[in-house]
């Protein structure tokens, strides 16, 4: 009875409790520092994971929260990667402004395409995003005078980060840089998800028909979130360029769009940490499996994907969540 009375007194308390920062989150982010103090031989992999996690976080915003399915999200990753690469190649190797530039170009293209995206759903949307991705890949391929085509963009030279930290061979700077950008972006996304705008995105995912009937302009929301997701994907692409000092056509490849979707489904779409956990599992699995059998490692990813979708429809995080709540009910 008292519990019910408290509820009535302050319904917002319950909402606050749901979104508060948990101890396990602190543990998670502290754990991401381990590669810096442990063996430096994993630093390169750790950077790749952080960048992939950022890319997956971007897809989570549109797919996991707003329900916009995309099979061409690599388009924005690639735009960011080439923008950062071209800036560095043509004499501007400053990392932070390069990253802002990468985000800006990806965001502009994202905003322009969002007007098409907001008009479609489901299969049509998958085909449109797929088409956009392929279009950009072939454009980059044919414009070899600009992008280097299939040979990749050569001559990307980065200046030291903040004028002090060189991108060292071990990858200390690369990992610290990627991790900080990931963490800051994560904080922003976390805030966005817990705002009224984030609630509206979930509303679109849950029932796009009802949204106009409560006075909501779904299209305006979709345009906004798609642009934000494009910006974040562009930052992830820019990070990859800056930390590896090279750009290949692979940044725009369909495989990249498909992989990030797999990562998100593995980890758990519509959950803040889904893309992060998914990226860790996917990248570590790829590292291990490709060591054992470089040709057929997708066999194992395929097996893992089917197992997760069949047994854990809400991804690994969703499964863990269910396990925890069962544990709590005992």
């Amino acid at each position, binding site marked *: 009875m008292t519990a019910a009375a408290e509820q*009535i007194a302050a*319904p917002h308390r319950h*909402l606050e409790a749901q979104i508060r920062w948990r101890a396990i989150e602190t543990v998670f982010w502290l754990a991401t520092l381990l590669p810096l103090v442990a063996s430096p031989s994993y630093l390169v992999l750790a950077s790749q994971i952080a960048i992939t996690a950022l890319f997956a976080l971007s897809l989570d915003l549109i797919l996991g929260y707003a329900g916009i399915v995309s099979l061409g999200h690599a388009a924005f990753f690639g735009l960011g990667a080439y923008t950062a690469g071209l800036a560095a190649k043509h004499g501007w190797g400053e990392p932070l402004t390069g990253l802002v530039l990468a985000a800006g170009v990806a965001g502009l293209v994202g905003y322009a395409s969002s007007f098409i995206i907001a008009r479609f759903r489901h299969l049509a949307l998958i085909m449109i995003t797929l088409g956009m991705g392929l279009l950009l890949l072939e454009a980059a391929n044919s414009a070899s005078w600009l992008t280097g085509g299939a040979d990749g963009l050569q001559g990307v030279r980065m200046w030291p980060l903040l004028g002090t930290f060189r991108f060292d061979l071990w990858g200390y700077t690369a990992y610290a840089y990627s991790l900080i950008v990931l963490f800051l972006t994560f904080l922003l996304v976390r805030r966005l998800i*817990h705002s*009224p705008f984030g609630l509206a995105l979930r509303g679109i995912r*849950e*029932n796009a028909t009802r949204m*106009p009937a*409560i*006075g909501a302009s779904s299209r305006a929301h979709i345009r906004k979130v798609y642009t934000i997701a494009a910006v974040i994907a562009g930052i992830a692409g820019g990070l990859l360029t800056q930390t590896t000092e090279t750009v290949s056509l692979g940044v725009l490849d369909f495989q990249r769009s498909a992989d990030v979707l797999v990562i998100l489904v593995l980890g758990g779409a519509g959950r803040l940490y889904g893309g992060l956990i998914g990226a860790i599992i996917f990248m570590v699995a790829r590292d291990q499996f490709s060591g054992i059998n470089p040709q057929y490692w997708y066999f194992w990813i395929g097996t893992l994907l089917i197992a997760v979708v069949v047994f854990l429809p809400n991804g690994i995080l969703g499964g863990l969540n269910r396990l925890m709540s069962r544990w709590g009910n005992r």
Partner: protein
Amino acid sequence: MSEPALATRALNKSFGSLAVARDVELTLPRGVRYALIGPNGAGKTTLINLMTGMLRPDAGRIFLGPDDITRLEPEARVKRGLVRTFQINTLFPNLTALEAVTLAVCERRSLTGTWWRRLPAHRDAVDEAYGILASLALGVHCHRLTRELAYGQQRLLEIALALATRPKVLLLDEPAAGVPRDESAGLFAAIAGLSQDITVLFIEHDMNVVFRFASRIIVMVRGRILVEGSPDEIAADAQVREVYLGGARHG
């Protein structure tokens, strides 16, 4: 009082050769409780879809108060106070009842564009949403997911979502559809208890409910308004008897 809350003029709509709205002329004064009745396929839901902008009329005009809203998008009509509910639950399955109604409140207050403030910081919006749920006896269930609510509670949530938009005109498409008869009385009592500033039009098949809660009744047949009048006039109308009894004889 002279100006109608909602009016249609010569509204027409056809799907191919099937005319679903023929010269529909409707005038709803402020604050009335209208029932819209008619046999299945008469075009009742279609009329709601036309008025709320979910369908475009082939011809005719729609007025909300003094304003011509014929060309407005559905969400713009909602913002001006023309709101509907759905015959088949059209809710947000994985939002809690409180989240869903808070979403509607935030949309009305144009808060959903902001992403830098947390939802609980908009405490008055959350409190308002809770107040609406409590007024419909959903207060204790407000933290449950919509899909976990009982069917009758989901029907109430349909109405709660509509109320959160602060409607001037409320169009209820069979609000008690699928609700057991003893529960539907409670649901209509909630509707009858709405502010007298709100004009209500509801579609309903149960004639007991219609005659108990409606101050005026409109009868639609094959896309056309057959007759409009007070419950007594409708009960005595020979044409209406013909439609209902005649229809029963054929089908």
